[in-house]
């Protein structure tokens, strides 16, 4: 289970194949074109067996092209395009073709063409088609007549084709030597325009014209060529060429004139730094900065400190306390923000599973502070150490099962599940899934019969989710994983990557991750688990209530589902949805809460610095989409240290 989950987590390319050469290709492509989002715009990796004329034969993983027609005259020409067009976000794209054999006459063309261009032709002869031909060394720019361009090429030569998506030119190489610009008017938007209409027009043009595919064409028998889309190191030093353009573009940015508004500029920068510090509650730094730069801080010190305290609580995983503190300091805030409250509660539930939230931590003696804030908390729960023997006795055959502290019901279910999951290897005590199902069912669900499903996995989930009276059939989904949690997609809230959890937690004497090699549900405490389940029910109720009041909210549903899914696994930290337990997932919640507080105080919910950063990133994304290649050499990351 864990393995399958890990495999699918990577997604994308590695899932395609694990061959070493494929990996090398992927690695090289990632290095060459780091700005390309390959999920959105895949890179060419081979010739397309579907997008070719029938005189073309493909072999060797669709990288070798041979001619199999009659080759009498130009009417017998045949081309093949690559599987994908060249994404603009490459900035600079390059591929090479080795002439394995020039065949009878060596009428070979190497170049680019748009989708839909006739394949019964050599590249370059038609509109939206460009080629360099071996027999005469001419370049063909969408025309039947060529221009003298470079030397001829023949058997043994390696011809490279480089598309520069920044200035929309193309040049070829022969055996590693650049032959100079061949085409200067490739159909890609050339310049960014301030005027929206022009941009739009260009964009439309782009949609129709661009998307050039690497293309080769052959015309006489015996002609064979091999492509290199990055499978092998290139003969030409393309990376050096890219370096030049990266330097050019970064130079342009560096030299961008800011005019005579120098004073304003400085004030603006100071304001950005200051507001950033304030936003994240670095109050003494902010104060020092204000003092030195002779600026003022909008927000009051106490307010900053309050936010800082709340943020620390969230980041420490003590969401319950954070909610309480927020309600105390900012009465009405959460009431007016039911979505935020729900998010916080979901997080709180996750933290309960994690064993970090105060509501479950109070069952352990670990945190003096939570004891302080919860004076009425019950007696100390048994220490984890005393449970260990229990764990070993029950979990002897499944070492990863740490269910020794679960309530009997859950313990049973969990061990069953554990056995089930390992049944393929060895299971002595595994009960059939149906038994598992009914057993869990019998505990508290009356409505769950309708969930009877065929797949084992679903069954398992349903078994657990039925605790919470799930009534919506939409919940019958397989446990999916959301790499970045729900929050990130949900809004524009900015994550603050600068917090270090260790630092924040260091006032706390204990940290779950540090102390126990074997993490346990709710800190391994029976009472805590009961509390967690109860809290889960409350959360479910809240969800239904919100649904009634504000209508269906898929986001909520998903959050809830993800959170509850944790219970479906014996070791939630090592399960497909286990990522939720990662302390890093507290950050979006923390940011959302912080933003909401700031908004309630009539302060910007995002620091201008982050806004600018986000805007820059978004700009680059947009540039990639409309085909402005320079985006690939001006990445925001390059400027963040």
């Amino acid at each position, binding site marked *: 289970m864990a393995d399958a989950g890990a495999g699918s987590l990577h997604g994308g390319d590695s899932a395609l194949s694990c061959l070493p050469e494929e990996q090398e290709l992927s690695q090289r492509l990632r290095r060459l074109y780091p700005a390309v989002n390959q999920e959105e715009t895949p890179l060419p990796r081979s010739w397309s067996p579907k997008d070719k004329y029938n005189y073309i034969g493909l072999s060797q993983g669709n990288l070798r092209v041979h001619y199999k027609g009659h080759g009498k005259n130009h009417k017998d020409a045949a081309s093949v395009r690559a599987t994908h067009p060249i994404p603009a976000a490459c900035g600079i794209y390059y591929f090479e073709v080795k002439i394995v054999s020039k065949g009878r006459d060596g009428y070979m063309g190497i170049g680019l063409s748009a989708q839909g261009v006739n394949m019964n032709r050599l590249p370059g002869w038609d509109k939206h088609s460009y080629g360099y031909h071996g027999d005469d060394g001419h370049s063909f720019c969408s025309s039947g007549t060529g221009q003298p361009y*470079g030397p001829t090429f023949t058997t043994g030569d390696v011809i490279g084709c480089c598309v520069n998506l920044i200035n929309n030119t193309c040049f070829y190489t022969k055996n*590693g030597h650049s032959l100079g610009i061949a085409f200067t008017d490739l159909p890609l938007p050339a310049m960014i325009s301030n005027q929206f209409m022009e941009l739009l027009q260009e964009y439309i043009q782009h949609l129709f014209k661009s998307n050039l595919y690497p293309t080769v064409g052959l015309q006489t028998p015996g002609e064979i060529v091999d492509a290199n889309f990055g499978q092998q190191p290139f003969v030409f030093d393309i990376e050096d060429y890219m370096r030049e353009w990266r330097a050019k573009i970064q130079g342009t940015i560096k030299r961008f004139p800011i005019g005579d508004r120098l004073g304003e500029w400085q004030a603006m920068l100071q304001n950005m730094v200051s507001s950033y510090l304030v936003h994240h509650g670095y109050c003494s730094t902010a104060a020092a900065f204000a003092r030195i730069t002779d600026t003022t801080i909008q927000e009051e010190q106490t307010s900053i400190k309050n936010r800082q305290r709340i943020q620390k609580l969230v980041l420490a995983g003590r969401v319950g306390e954070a909610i309480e503190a927020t309600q105390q300091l900012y009465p009405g805030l959460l009431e007016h923000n039911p979505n935020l409250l729900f998010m916080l509660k979901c997080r709180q539930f996750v933290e309960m599973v994690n064993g970090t939230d105060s509501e479950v931590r109070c069952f352990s003696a670990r945190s003096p502070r939570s004891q302080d804030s919860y004076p009425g908390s019950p007696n100390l729960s048994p220490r984890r150490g005393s449970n260990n023997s229990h764990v070993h006795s029950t979990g002897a055959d499944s070492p990863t099962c740490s269910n020794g502290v679960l309530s009997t019901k859950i313990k049973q279910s969990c061990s069953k599940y554990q056995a089930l999951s390992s049944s393929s290897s060895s299971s002595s005590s595994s009960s059939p899934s149906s038994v598992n199902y009914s057993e869990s069912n019998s505990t508290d669900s009356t409505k769950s019969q309708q969930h009877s499903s065929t797949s084992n996995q679903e069954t398992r989930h349903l078994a657990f989710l039925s605790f919470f009276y799930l009534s919506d059939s939409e919940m019958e989904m397989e446990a999916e994983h959301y790499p970045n949690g729900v929050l990130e997609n949900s809004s524009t809230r900015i994550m603050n990557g600068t917090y270090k959890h260790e630092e924040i937690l260091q006032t706390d004497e204990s940290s779950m991750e540090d102390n126990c090699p074997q993490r346990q549900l709710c800190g391994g405490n029976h009472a805590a688990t009961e509390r967690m389940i109860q809290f889960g029910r409350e959360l479910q109720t809240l969800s239904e209530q919100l649904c009634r009041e504000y209508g269906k909210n898929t986001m909520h549903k998903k959050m809830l589902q993800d959170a509850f899914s944790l219970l479906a696994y014996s070791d939630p930290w090592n399960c497909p949805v286990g990522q939720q337990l990662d302390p890093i997932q507290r950050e979006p919640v923390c940011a959302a809460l912080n933003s909401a507080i700031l908004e309630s105080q009539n302060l910007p919910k995002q620091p201008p610095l982050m806004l600018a950063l986000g805007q820059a990133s978004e700009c680059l994304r947009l540039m990639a989409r409309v085909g402005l290649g320079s985006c690939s050499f001006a990445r925001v990351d390059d400027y963040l240290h």
Partner: protein
Amino acid sequence: MACVLEAPLRMSVLSEVTASSRHYVDRLFDLDPQKVLQGVIDMKNAVIGNNKQKANLIVLGAVPRLLYLLQQETSSTELRTECAVVLGSLAMGTENNVKSLLDCHIIPALLQGLLSPDLKFIEACLRCLRTIFISPVTPEDLLYTDATVISHLMALLSRSRYTQEYICQIFSHCCKGPDHQTILFNHGAVQNIAHLLVSTSYKVRMQALKCFSVLAFENPQVSMTLVNGKHKVLVDGELLPQIFVKMLQRDKPVEMQLTSAKCLTSMCRAGAIRTDDSCIVLKTLPCLVRMCSKERLLEERVEGAETLAYLIETDVELQRIASITDHLIVMLADYFKYPSSVSAITDIKRLDHDLKHAHELRQAAFKLYASLGANDEDIRKKIIETENMMDRIVNGLSESSIKVRLAAVRCLHSLSRSVQQLRTSFQDHAVWKPLMKVLQNAPNEILVVASSTLCNLLLEFSPSKEPILESGAIELLCSLTQSENLALRVNGIWALMNVAFQAEQKIKSDILRGLSTEQLFQLLSDSDVNVLMKTLGLLRNLLSTRPHIDHIMSTHGKQIMQAVTLILEGEHNIEVKEQTLCILANIADGTTAKELIMTNDDILQKIKYYMSHSNAKLQLAAMFCISNLVWNEEEGSQERQDKLRDMGIVDILHKLSQSSDPNLCDKAKTALQQYLA
């Protein structure tokens, strides 16, 4: 004391300068050292960026006083440092400023200052020295007058990044020619400067690199050391060529790329790096081609083209690669478009800039075309097909700038190696006319290339041959053979040889007359084997077709026979002797000329001797003589046959007819047949 000495000078110019300048100088003479220091500091602030103020202070005699203060042991280090700074600032001004400073013997004073233990003072002195030495008015030799200076500078290289920067800059500006290179090299320049190539300071890296580019330029010793000296020079575990290649990367500053390409070029030409090494083929060459592109500054384009011309000059494979790289041949055509018509109208500043570089650009382009077309016919064709190429060369031949003329001739020379072009474009553009003009009163370096070009234009198949002869080429060539310059002598006689090939009687007589017998014999005894060979070639060409042979031998027979005897008796290589025997064979082909041989027993014995020589080529040449002599259709053949039989020639012929060498065997049989008929 200084006060008293300088007072009269100051009086004489007082009227011309402002009171404020005078005030600054006056303060240098204050008795309170503290006030002097403050005066110098104020002066420093006053002169920065103010050329007029600088000139005023120099006129008022501030320099000797500053130098005095700088050298005075009693001056505080601070004062001495400030003096050096002010002097450096004065040197930053006009060339006249530098001249004035030099007149006051500033260099020895500053060099003396380098012996101080104080780093700040040393840096100030070096900075000032740097500024003075990079000025074109400063003679570089001033650096080398005292042998201890260089070693002291080498020692100072370790002191700080500023000493490193300034010293490297001084070296790279003062290293002109092999003597300077050797001095610096012997002081361990390579080892001392190598590690500066990886300094954290860009300026230091750059100046160190420049040092290497001048040290290695046309210097095999330095070049070899850079690659693999006895003590391998490693910097951060890497060899210097690897470091240079890194500096070629396309995101490095252009200046750095260009300079490191120059280093690698020198190393390649010195044979330290193979011409097929990937660092040359895939890095240096493409980098230099890029330097020729329109995007580069004019200076960079000039330097790039010249360096590339040098790199590929002697290697046809590099020429081929360069010729296909980035449309270089077309790109170079742009070098002739300065000043452009646009710049003249729109921008006077740009026009000035363009004009200044126009000559340099043209000569650089010609040089590179010359290298590109040196060996490959296809490349020559591509060059000539470039827009207006022949017109540009023709124009270049008559430009006022010697540099451009020389480069144009070199280019023409390179292209003249093409038979096809000689027949076509050279004829179409009457290239010979400006070429003949260039040959009149040109300096030797131009003459060498131009006469060599003329050689090619005078080849038998060249349509230019006749008009060139008509315009008095023979006289010119004959005078070249008398030159002190060996290359000119070779070219002169070579051209005459080409002229004489299958020429008509009149031309041959013109040559003999123009050359004079004495000069001919002078050339035959020339110490240079090339001159001797070409002279013999000329003789051989003169002595062809029977009427010509008889005519020439009737007038010059005696001297020629003498010369031939001398050469056959002398210590010469096989080729020379073979050529001489061929001349004899030609003489033997004459009707009356034959007798000159038959009556000369000495020569006959020599021919006999060479028939049995160990070298087959000489045997064959001797056989030609015999064959011509015994040919029986001609008058008096019977007598000649008899005489030769008596000499034992027939026996040798019989022996040779058994030879394993088919040529010899055939020739001997043919000769024997003459006896049978």
